[in-house]
Structures are given as C-alpha cells and as structure tokens.
C-alpha cells in the first residue's frame, strides 16, 4: 500500500509521520506518536472512546484517516491540562475504569467550547455518542454541568 509522509499538528506541535493510505488517525496518533490517551473501543464509530478534537470539534479518530488530518489542528486528551472538565470528572467520580474517560472528556470539552449555553437536550445529543459501561451516566452529567457552569461568566 502507498505510503505518505505528512505533517500533523497535534497538541500545538508539528509532527512528521509516514503513514499508509489506510491508517486511521487513531492508529497513527497511538502507534506513531505514542499518544495512547485516545482508546480503541470498537474501531467503528460506535463507542466514542477514541474521541479527539479536530479544529475544535469532537471527532472519533477511528473514523478519520491520518492523511485527512493534514493541515488541521488536532487536540488529544494529552493536550488538555487542568481544564474545568478534567477537574469536574475527578470531583464527581465521573469515571471508574477510566477507559472511556478521555473520549468523554474530549467530547465534553468541545461541547463547553462550542455550546457554552447547552441545555439538557443539547448535552444529550452530544454525549450519547459515547458509551460508559461503569458509571450510571448521572456522575458524568453532573461533571459536564459543573464544568459548563464554571465556564459561564457569573451573572
């Protein structure tokens, strides 16, 4: 299969990688860049464990080819540090095994940035694309709302 040498901007760093046409972005960031925070859960777009940000929007990285990501701003969980949503997940016990957590956090983080006034139905619309098998989702709901609230200018 044909190889491509491409430049990826990941977590504000330029990375040069050589990939096959068939390599997913998930495979590339994990295997070539060692960023294993994004998790393979289904490789089919069903579970959301591999969610990252592409140009500020949440993207299931198993559904995107590495070659498609050239020229785009990619943020992975490793690129977040002390964000309100990470703090909220810790405080509200919004994870147990932690495997789905990077995906939920990346999705929730994007939601907070893109839809700071999200109501219940918008939150549901965004978060139902990810699966958590340990929690009851109530903990995640609390964490998301806590982080959304923190993000709002106090009125």
């Amino acid at each position: 299969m044909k190889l491509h040498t491409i430049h990826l901007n990941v977590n504000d760093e330029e990375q040069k990688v050589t990939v096959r046409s068939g390599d997913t972005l998930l495979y590339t960031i994990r295997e070539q860049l060692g960023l294993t925070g994004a998790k393979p859960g289904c490789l089919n777009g069903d579970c959301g464990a591999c969610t990252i940000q592409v140009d500020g929007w949440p993207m299931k990285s198993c559904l995107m080819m590495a070659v498609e990501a050239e020229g785009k701003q990619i943020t992975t969980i490793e690129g977040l540090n002390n964000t309100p949503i990470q703090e909220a997940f810790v405080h509200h016990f919004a994870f147990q095994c932690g495997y789905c957590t990077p995906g939920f956090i990346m999705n929730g983080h994007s939601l907070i940035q893109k839809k700071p006034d999200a109501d219940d139905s918008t939150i549901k619309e965004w978060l139902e694309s990810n699966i958590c098998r340990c929690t009851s989702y109530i903990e995640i709901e609390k964490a998301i709302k806590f982080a959304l609230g923190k993000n709002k200018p106090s009125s």
Partner: protein
Amino acid sequence: MIMEVIGKSVIRKEAQDKVTGRAQYTHDYHTSKKLSGRVVLSPYSHARIISIDTTDARKVPGVRAIITGEHLPLTGESMRDRPPLATGKVRYHGEAVAIVVADTPDQGDLAANLIQIQYELLPVVHTPTQAFQQNSPLIHERLGEYDREKDVYPVPGTNIAHHVKIRKGNLEKGWAESSVTVEGDYSFSPSDHAAMETRSSTAEITPDGTIKIITSSQAPFMVKQLIASYFNEDIGKIVVDTPLVGGAYGGKASVQLEILAYLSSRAVKGLPVEIFNQREQDIMMSPSHIGLDAKIKIGADQSGVIKAMELQFFWDGGAYSDKAIDLTRAGAVDCTGPYKVDNVWCDSYCMYTNHTYASPFRGFSHSELSFAVERTFDLLAKKLNLDSLELRERNAIHPGHTTPTRVLLNQSNVGNLQECISKLRTLIRWEEGPVKEINERLVRVKGVSCSWKTSTIDSNAPSGVILTFNRDGSLNLMTGVVEIGTGAKTVLAQLLAEKLKMDVDKIYVRMNVDTQTTPEHWKTVASRGIYMAGRALLEAADDVIAQLKQMASIVLRAPIEDLEVAHMRVFIRDDPRKGVDFKDICYGYQYPNGNSIGGQIIGKGNFILRHLSHLDPETGEGKPGPEWTVAAYGVEVEFDRRDFTYRLIKAASVIDIGIVLNEKAALGQVMGAMSMGLSFAGRETFYYDELGRVLNPQLRTYRPIRYGENPEYLVDFVYTPDLQAPYGARGVGEHGLLGMPAALGNALSIAANVSLHHLPLTPELIWKTKVGKV
C-alpha cells in the same frame, strides 16, 4: 467509633492519570518490537473441520508463523474440555481456529483472510432446553474422558457438563401444606459484558525461558497457574503483569487470550506477540454472559408463607464448560432468593450449547436466577391478591434460618432484609401504590424485587498484602487486587490510613499487579477485594505497628504497652510530646554517634476464608461462601399502551452494606451496577440465526444504555456489620445489578397487563407476548 478517613469520598489514587490520558492499559504498552497475532474465527457454530489450507496465507510478506490446533493440550478451569484452537470441529460461532503471527496487524489480517478452511455443517444446539433433550445433537462426544476437578459431575452421552442438586426438607410435605401454587418458565439468551477496553494480551519468552505476559485480566495469578499447568511450564518462570483494566464485570476473569498469546510467542522463538481483540472478536470469540432457561414452582399457604419451592435451571454454558460449572453451582446455592424456604429442590444443570462459552458476569448467576424467582413471586402475590412487598417481607430470610445448602444464618453473616424492604418502601413512595394513571396511553408503574448473594469462591483462595516504607515515613501498599474500576486500591489505602491514623495522601498504592512481586490475591472477582485484601491489610498494618512500637520502645525507653501510633509518629500515650517520627525508625534508628539498630520495616498480612466446604453431591449441603449481602429494589417505568414502548423513570436500591468505606465510590458502584442491570434487562442479548451465528457483534447492533437513557437513581443503605469483614463492610460491587431485571420485569408485567418471562424486555417482546407470539 469516629472515623477520620473511612466513609469519606477520598479521590481515587489514579484519578489524575485517568483524566489526562496518562493511565495505561494493556494495549497501550509499547515494546521496541511487538508482532501481531490475528485470530481466524469460525464462521459456523457447529461444524466439522475438513481441511485447513495455509499455503496462500504463508506467502503474505511479514507472516512469521501460522498456528493451528493439533497437538495442543485441552484447557478449561474446572474441566479440560476446550482446545485452545479448535480441532476436529468447531463448537461456536467465533471460535478460534488458527492464529497468524505477522509483523503488523494488517499483514496478519490479510493472511488470515487467505487461510482456506473447509467445514461440514453439523446440527446446531440452540438452547439449553434443546441441549437437555434426549435426541439432541451431542457437542462433546468424549465428555467422559476429560480431566476435571473432583466435584464436577458431567453426564457422558448427554450435553450435561455439570449437575448441582439441592435437596432440603421434604418437598411432598411442602406441597401438601400449600394451598396455592404458581409456576413459570423463563428464558434469555447469552449476552455480553461489553467492557470498553476489549481484551488483549502480549506474551514474550526471553532466552532464559521467562514467560512474560501482560494482560487485561481480573485473574493474573490464575493465568500464571493455568499456563504452568496446561503447558507444563515452571510456574516461577511465568510473570504476569496487569496494568489498569478498562472494565471487566467478570468477563476478564476467564483465561483465554493469554493462552493464545503464549502459543503465538512460542511459535516465533519467543518474540513478543500481541493478541488484541477487535470488538467483534471480543464479543464472539471471548467468553460471554451466560444465558438461562428456568422452571420455577412455588407453593404457599393462604397468608403467603412459602411452603415449597422446586427449581430447574438450565444454564447456557455454551460450547465449553470453563466457568459455567461454577456459575451453575452459584445459582443453585442461593436458588430461593433471600427467603425462608424449608422445603426446596433445585436442579441446576450446566448445559453445553453451540453458543460462545460463558465467563462470570457481575452478580455471578444471581441477577439471572432472581429474574425467574422474583417474577414468580409476583405471580404468587397476584394470585393471593397480596401486596408484593408484603409477600416478600413475610418470607424474608432472618438470622436463625438456613440457606438452601443449610448454612445457619446469624446476625453477622446475613444482612437485614426486612430493614432494606422497609427503607425501599419510603424511597419509592410505595404507599402511593404501584400504578399511577397518566392518561389514556401512559401509565406509570413500579415493580419491586429482592436479592441476596454470597460469593462462591474457591475455599482456599488466598489474599496477601505487603507494606513498605519510604524514607520520609510514608508507606507503599502492595496487593494483588487488580484496579478494574472499582476504586478498591484507594479504599484499601483508606483502611490503612484509618488504622495508622495518618493522612491517606501519604499512602502510595501500587496500581499494576505483577505476579512476581505483588502478593497473590486469588482473583479480583465476587465483590471480595475489600473483604479479603482488607483483612490481609489490617494484619499487615498490625505487623507494621508492632515493629514500629518495638523500635520506638527502645528509642523512647518506654514499654511497648505505653505507646500509641498516629500522624506518622510513635509516642507515649500520656505524654504525646515524647515520641519518634516514622521516618526516624522505619529504616532503623541511628544514634548520634552513628550506631544504628533495627532496619527496614516491612509489614505483611494474609487472609484465607474460614470453614468453606464443598457441597454434598446428593443434597447440596455445605458452606459455599462467607456471608450474604441482601438488598431490595424498585423500578418505575412510564409505559405507553399504544406502542409498548417505555421510559425508565426511577430505579432504586437499598443494600445492607455494613458500612460505607468511600461514599462516592460506593454510590458509583451501586448506580453503575444498576445501570448495567437495566441495560441487560431492557436491551442486551445476542440474536442468532438458524445456524447459531451471532447477528449483532458490534456496539451499534448490540447496544448498551447510553447517556440520557438512564433513569433517576435512588440509593439507600442499611448498616448491619459483618463481624468478620474489615470495619464490618459487606461486598457491594455487584449488588446494585441483581434485582434490576426482576424489578423491571415486574413493573412492565403490571404495566402491560401480561406476564413477561423473557429478557431483554423490549417493546417488541412485550407486543409479542401480548399477541401470543412468544
């Protein structure tokens, strides 16, 4: 007693790693070079293997080896009936038939697709009931020849892998005393754990013969033991490493991929080989959640007091018996549910079918049997025109009663079910009645259930803890309990902090388990982590305290009896200013002139359960587990009479927990288990075609509950201490799940005005039951 650390929602020790992507799971580890093992799965559920042609596959660049099943020993935990790779015939859809070891996953996949396998179809056994029939096709023709543990009773010439009998009291007398009887048949197919981390294992054999396995497992010590035993390897040469596990729920207590990874590495001169399950493979090939066909008959007098129960369980163990044998036993020992039943017969059969074989599933047979028993309880309540909670309360198990296997219960070894029921009444506003009409279409209905559970683990299962110090007096806690998401290691740190009266932040826990350097904890299963490792930990803490005091008594020139330990210091009880810091004695004490005494303090503790016994093969008499946790549940649904859809409104659990050790973690365990129980009850099952092939091996067709589909959760606790357990804590990891299928089934049966006997409880099932098409 006022607790400083216990009961507090101490933040998990691994929390920061988990929210920053730094937490590493098995598949995240990178070695300098790791080959990929790709498994060829059977496309049929029962077929003879005529030929396997690997000629074309071997030509693919990067292929290092192709392994098939000849000359491999049989495996299986209680009975060795399973070839690691199918030989002669395949017995389930998705069974491993061959492995391609290649440089990269894509090369392996390419080669795997080029392996030509000729099959000849055999008749398929679809259900355990069919498997039980005399004329059923046989799945294991040589059942009588398998090596097995001595308390396993297969019936050669049939599909019965194991049979457990409970014979307590006099059933004839019980029926004679009954003025009403009710009966019900129930069934559901196997389903999946669907842990978000699929299983994976990497094996390597170094030139000195050390077998290194890194695996996503609840049972790394069992991996070591079984691989040594199956393949005649020196057990000391096997080192199993288990990092954080991304969800398990029983599904990672079975040993399967580790064997395939070991065989793969062996085939390529010991190079590291990873077997990573993609989701479809994880669902089809790796062991599943057991299915069940059950027949229940209950007799009671006019006031609703149960006089007799007769139960038949046909467990869908699938193609191999592995853990299904223990699941069959666990279902039998608690078969009645948490009720006083003097006359009970139970026949629990582990049946072979052409389904994926079973591993444990959170609750270990109890949510399954509860569905059948508790639905029948509601049938009885209806027949007697009794309040369904009242009926349960009237028969509730108490200290002084005996279990089906005739264990005498006391205040400590069984919780207080009556109080659970009483608290549930308040929690779900039972006084308002079970039915609330909303309008012509919609009705809100509450259903209830109860459960109990003991943990039927091996009677000699060990747990050990080692404590070491750092130079600043802080401690390191090492245990073989795997962090599968429960927060058990954080809770153990809390127990230690409480015992030593110190800051929990000064206790460091070793997250990874490595079978060479962490003391064994049998398996991280059965809600037994805190019970067993907690006891071992308290013994290790006592050991540390004794050593610290001994050193301090020399330094302080005071008798040991006069010393206290707190805040990382040993001091004189009536004059706390006189003391010595841990840091000055934990690595020996040095006098001003340089002379030193003592040395590094290392604490050790171990625990083994007391007085557990095998069951009598004819009557079932014996002690299967240490204690019973009891609970009561309610589920409220809003049901649409027009199209049979429903919404989950509320779900409630009241569990006798003994004591809460970490509040948010405990609530998380209970609510998470309830969520899983509702998901199993309402939507999860494998759908099969006429050839026994799984039709939905993906998370878009096998669809667990998602965000926003959850009800409101109500949780309350009862606090009856278990005197044998650390600080009185009872197991709680599974119990939120146990009553959910039954309570949901009971609610929907009332709502739809039809008796529902199958899972999952989909609108389609309700409709089919209504129109008589089930």
